[in-house]
């Protein structure tokens, strides 16, 4: 066991993957000499050489498109998209090629590609540096979409993603890069499947579903609620496509109340999908309609406004009050 930041745990995961499989290559903007703008690839080019850790031209479609060609050649590329808002030039390759090649060719072509994307806000950044574009990808059949919330998951899930024969979009919660935690870098990869959700805190009253950067926020909310005698069961989805609905359903059948929170905008987001699916599966176990606490349906705002955009402990607890039928901000609201 070692104490690592989430970023260092990712670096360690990449290092393991590069050591374990000579077909693994890392590519992206500034990932080589600089070690990435968040230093996640720090030291890798020095140790594995520029053939395996490649600085690429600034062209996201080019990065993903050439990675597809490397897959045809038997490689297992791990590409870094520098920031969430920079992925869109590669959107075409991801949606029209990466997601579909295996289906299109009836299994002849595998695309064991991992696309790492630092995502989410809360770091006071300029436009295109704080977004949560996961729903674009969870809507795309053929992609797997995962995210981590702690150093151990960062390490293990990244290795699982790289080992996966399907394309995986791996979202990294950039504001948690510096969160420290114990990491067992020798933990077996097949202990907990990548697509399995994790129960973070046990609770009997409300199921609080979240992922990535808001897991820590949700835990804070659960601790605060405990002081009021309310038991919140926090679920860390980890996998956003597929979603481990069975685990969510089991929890909701127990608590009867569901709150979903994510940074991404509400409309058409994961919260909608989970609320709908859980309503379909266990409507009669719900005591109240599910509630969502999300970013507003606006473009990601300027840094001085992001505290209003981003869900926080108080907004989550307000929704918890709502599903419990307690006094909350919408009590008596006539909008």
């Amino acid at each position, binding site marked *: 066991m070692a104490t690592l930041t989430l970023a260092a745990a990712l670096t360690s995961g990449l290092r393991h993957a590069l050591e374990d499989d000579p077909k693994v290559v890392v590519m992206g903007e500034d990932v080589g000499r600089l070690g990435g703008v968040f230093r996640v690839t720090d030291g890798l080019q020095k140790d594995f050489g520029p*053939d395996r850790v490649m600085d690429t031209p600034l062209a996201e479609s080019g990065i993903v498109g050439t990675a597809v*060609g490397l897959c045809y050649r038997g490689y297992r590329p791990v590409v870094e998209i520098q920031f969430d808002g920079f992925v869109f030039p590669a959107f075409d390759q991801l949606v029209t090629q990466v997601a579909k090649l295996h289906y299109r*060719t009836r299994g002849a072509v595998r695309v064991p590609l991992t696309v790492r994307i630092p995502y989410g806000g809360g770091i006071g950044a300029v436009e295109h540096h704080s977004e949560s574009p996961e729903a674009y990808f969870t809507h795309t059949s053929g992609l797997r979409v995962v995210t981590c919330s702690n150093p151990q998951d960062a390490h293990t899930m990244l290795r699982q993603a790289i080992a996966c024969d399907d394309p995986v979009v791996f979202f990294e919660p950039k504001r948690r890069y510096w969160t420290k935690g114990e990491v067992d870098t020798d933990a077996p990869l097949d202990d907990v499947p990548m697509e399995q959700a994790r129960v973070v805190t046990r609770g009997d009253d409300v199921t609080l579903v979240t992922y990535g950067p808001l897991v820590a926020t949700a835990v804070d909310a659960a601790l605060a609620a405990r002081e009021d005698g309310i038991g919140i069961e926090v679920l860390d989805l980890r996998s956003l496509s597929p979603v481990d609905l069975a685990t969510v359903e089991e929890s909701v059948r127990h608590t009867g109340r569901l709150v979903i929170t994510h940074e991404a905008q509400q409309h058409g987001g994961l919260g909608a999908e989970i609320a709908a699916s859980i309503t379909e599966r266990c409507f009669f176990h719900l005591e109240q309609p599910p509630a969502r606490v999300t970013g507003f349906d606006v473009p990601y705002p300027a840094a001085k406004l992001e505290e209003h955009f981003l869900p926080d402990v108080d907004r989550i607890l307000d929704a918890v009050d709502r599903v419990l039928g307690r006094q909350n901000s919408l009590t008596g609201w006539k909008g």
Partner: protein
Amino acid sequence: MGRRSLAVVPWPDIGQWCLELHKSDGAAMERNMLRQDVSRTAVRTSADHRVPVTDRTPQEPPLRVSPGAEPAGPPDDVLQLLTPEGVRRSHADLDDWVADVGDDELAALYEDMVVVRRLDLEATALQRQGELGLWPPLLGQEAAQVGSARALRRDDFVFSSYRENAVAYCRGVDLTDLVRVWRGTTASGWDPFAVGMATPTIIIGAQTLHATGYAMGCVKDGADSVAVAYFGDGATSEGDVNEAMVFAATFRAPVVFFCQNNQFAISEPVGLVAVRPLADRAPGFGIPSLRVDGNDVLAVTAATRIALDRARRGEGPTFIEAVTYRRGPHTTSDDPTRYVDPAVAEEWCAKDPILRVERLLESRGRLTAELTAAVTEHADAAAAEMRRGCLGLEAPPPLSVFDHVYTAPTSWLERQKSQYAAYLAMFEEA
């Protein structure tokens, strides 16, 4: 209408100008398209490399297409070894590359072209008869496709667009697999690794990046295999094609960018995407280029071999512009009478890629009755085989819609599949 130059056309009006030319004077259109397609040399280069450079003196006063642009050259400035009249021309830079193409080899190329034209016509007929949903005819582009594809080795790898059915034929794709996707029974036709050719991407230009990445992999593996990206004139304006050239140049990837300039992107003339010859773009990326008569199977073969040789030597990518003409519609859903000038089409008929080989064979006494009979028989048999295969293609079972989304069955898709099976079963029980 007299010859016009781009120099007199206001910059934003080029597209409209091209369309007007279409309406008014097809021959002038073609001449002018060729005008803007040429530059001083047939072989374009920006650095020291093995591609021969032809130095020609422009036959006309230089025309400026934009501030700082280089003068254009004569309209026939494409590499050519075989004229439309069937005359074998000598070209010091190219002859060695086809020195092994004797009469027998020429007859084989002829046979390939006749067969693929026959297959193409058969597929068009199958579409007209309602057996295929769609077909993208390659009529007129046989030499560009056969000449390049036959220059490849088995361990080279092709990434193409959707019109390269002659390339697929040359790679050994099963004839039924050629039409499978167009009948709609599968999303693509064949196993790429069995024939060394990816199934087409329909997204224009996307495959050029795949080819470049594949070629980067060849370098890592120490292999001397080459990736070949086929794309059209229209694709050259896509970002992916330009990104592919950036990556290929900087990583010195063994990739051949084979651009079939067939003059049209559906209805849009090449002048809408390029005010200079397409081959002129590549040197700006650090990629030497060749501009070749795409209807001349010998010149195409020579150009492709030059490019492959450079790639195998570790000298990186080459761009080939094969100047040809799409004589059919974009697809069977298209109506080219709305935008094609019949006079231009007529001119290109005279430049037919098969006719000129026939003439050459005839002049050498090789176009015998036996040869034509054998070739016709082969073409008819191939067409019949493809038709039989096509008609035998049945819709796949309903639940196969769930197959191969991921590399292994997944619980959540199995759930959807199971629910849909229950739904279907309801009708069977009724």
